[in-house]
């Protein structure tokens, strides 16, 4: 037998992926069946609070935007951002607990399941939460009369893309995180600015030109545009570009979490 020298180089990176990642997703779902009530509550209440305080309260003083009442304007944005929060919590704190505290990743990769599949399983679970929590909120909005177009049926598709992107981003952070504290930076420096400047509370056209370009780099901006267009029935002119941008994010962010998690665990 010849001598093999195994060097891991990003250029030679070959992901080991099969349908086994679904078993990892299944594991996460099984655990989820044990605490879904409390988890769902937490993720549901927050957007409702924003909706009440800003949409109903503040909204009374704000003129119509793009032909919508302020309540109607921010509701789809909050829908989009709620999927971002749900996925991001899952794939930072949730994944980090599995990785660092419970050592579930370590356990699973002693079986024929590969680390890539474990990471993918967690990303799939993050996307699942995005769709589940987003759909619940969408349903509530429907009951509140905040959904005015059947196009809203396509919103779960946006939730899927949003879930994938934020799961991937979060997993990158998780794979680099030395401890729990570090996630505060992710939320404060990355997600909160996105939450505030992605056109949820005011159209980004209000911002200086530079900031508008920046918005295009924020995945949340695109999900907000798409959600608002689908919920109101008035798709923005460039919606196809919003969709393509999200797809591009998903593609570009596909390998980094796999690669980084390998660097962390396979030493």
């Amino acid at each position, binding site marked *: *037998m010849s*001598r*093999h*020298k*195994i060097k*891991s180089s990003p250029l030679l990176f070959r992901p*080991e992926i099969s349908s*086994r990642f679904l*078993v990892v997703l*299944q*594991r996460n779902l*099984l*655990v989820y069946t*044990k*605490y879904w009530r409390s988890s769902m509550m937490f993720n549901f209440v927050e957007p409702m609070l924003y909706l009440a305080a800003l949409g109903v309260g503040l909204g009374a003083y704000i003129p119509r935007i793009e032909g919508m009442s302020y309540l109607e304007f921010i509701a789809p944005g909050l829908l989009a951002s709620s999927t971002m929060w749900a996925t991001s919590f899952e794939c930072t704190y949730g994944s980090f607990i599995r990785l660092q505290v*419970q*050592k*579930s990743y*370590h*356990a*699973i*990769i*002693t*079986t*024929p*399941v*590969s680390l890539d599949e474990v990471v993918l399983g967690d990303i799939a679970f993050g996307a699942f939460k995005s769709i589940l929590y987003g759909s619940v909120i969408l349903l509530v909005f429907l009951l509140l009369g905040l959904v005015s177009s059947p196009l809203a049926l396509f919103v779960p598709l946006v939730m899927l893309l949003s879930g994938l992107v934020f799961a991937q981003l979060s997993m990158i952070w998780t794979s680099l995180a030395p401890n729990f504290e570090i996630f505060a930076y992710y939320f404060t420096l990355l997600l909160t600015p996105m939450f505030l400047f992605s056109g949820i509370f005011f159209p980004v056209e209000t911002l200086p030109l530079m900031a508008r370009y920046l918005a295009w780099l924020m995945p949340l901006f695109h999900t907000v545009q798409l959600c608002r267009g689908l919920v109101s029935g008035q798709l923005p002119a460039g919606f196809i570009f919003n969709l393509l941008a999200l797809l591009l994010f998903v593609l570009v962010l596909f390998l980094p979490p796999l690669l980084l998690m390998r660097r962390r*665990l*396979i*030493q």
Partner: protein
Amino acid sequence: MQEGPVSREIIVARDLVKHYNGRAVVDGISFQVYRGECFGLLGPNGAGKTTTVKMVYGLSPISAGELTVLGLHAGSQSREIRKHLGVVSQDNNLDPDLTVWENMEMFARYYGLRPAHIAARLRQLLDLMDLSSAAHARVETLSGGMKRRLAIARSLINNPQLLILDEPTTGLDPQARHLLWQQLREIKEQKITILLTTHYLEEATKLCDRLVIMDRGRILEEGEPSALVAKHVGPQVLELGLKEDPPAWQEALTGRFAHLLKGSWLLGDTLYLYTDGGNRLLQELQELAPPCHYHLLRAATLEDVFLKLTGKELAPADVEA
């Protein structure tokens, strides 16, 4: 797979090296594990045992050398290898949110088995590890010993050709440890090949058919536990807790009783005299009457072998958190 059903070697390691940051933590080791035996890697903390087994199950890339497991290349075919492996890692990594039974079911799925098809086997494994009555308890609520037993039950789900046990009883209290040894012997009787790492001499002596003694990434010795004891220290050890001038007494005694000794070792003020004529040595010693706190004639163990080979004790007292 081309595992070669007739091949006797389950693991072949040749000049295996693992570097971390330029430091060789496994430094050119060679060994073979044969079908059906329990093979031990015995060594103190930091010897490189875990790193070695991680290379075997493919979670630590090999820096240099060759490693073949079940006839497959350990670096590039590790997924294929892991299909036939059972692994109990050093850290507890059970799923705490799930029950004992759910832990078993999930692991079956990771191996591509349908829990419903092998429910009888899962029950049998829980039975073997004395966990049947806890099947529906959440893992969080189990004792340390039960958790370790579950980890072992879980590792047997796929009927592995090689079972890897990395420090299986570390962290357990003595009672739980003895119970586990008994169960591991039952598993051994099923002729499953086992690769076991430990820093407990008693564990290695009780469970291993053959072992290597490792220290600082190197193999110091290899053989059957009893053969190693016979070769290096003979059947007995006379321990003397010397009161004064230990080095001088060591010289005096080893000179005077050379005909009875296989060697000696001084650790602090304790002198170890390795002998195959313990009673005669004791008798003749009376004449010289070295000033001692105590003397103790006992059977030699692997601990003495380790002491002689490395000049240090392997494990502190047999107690741990």
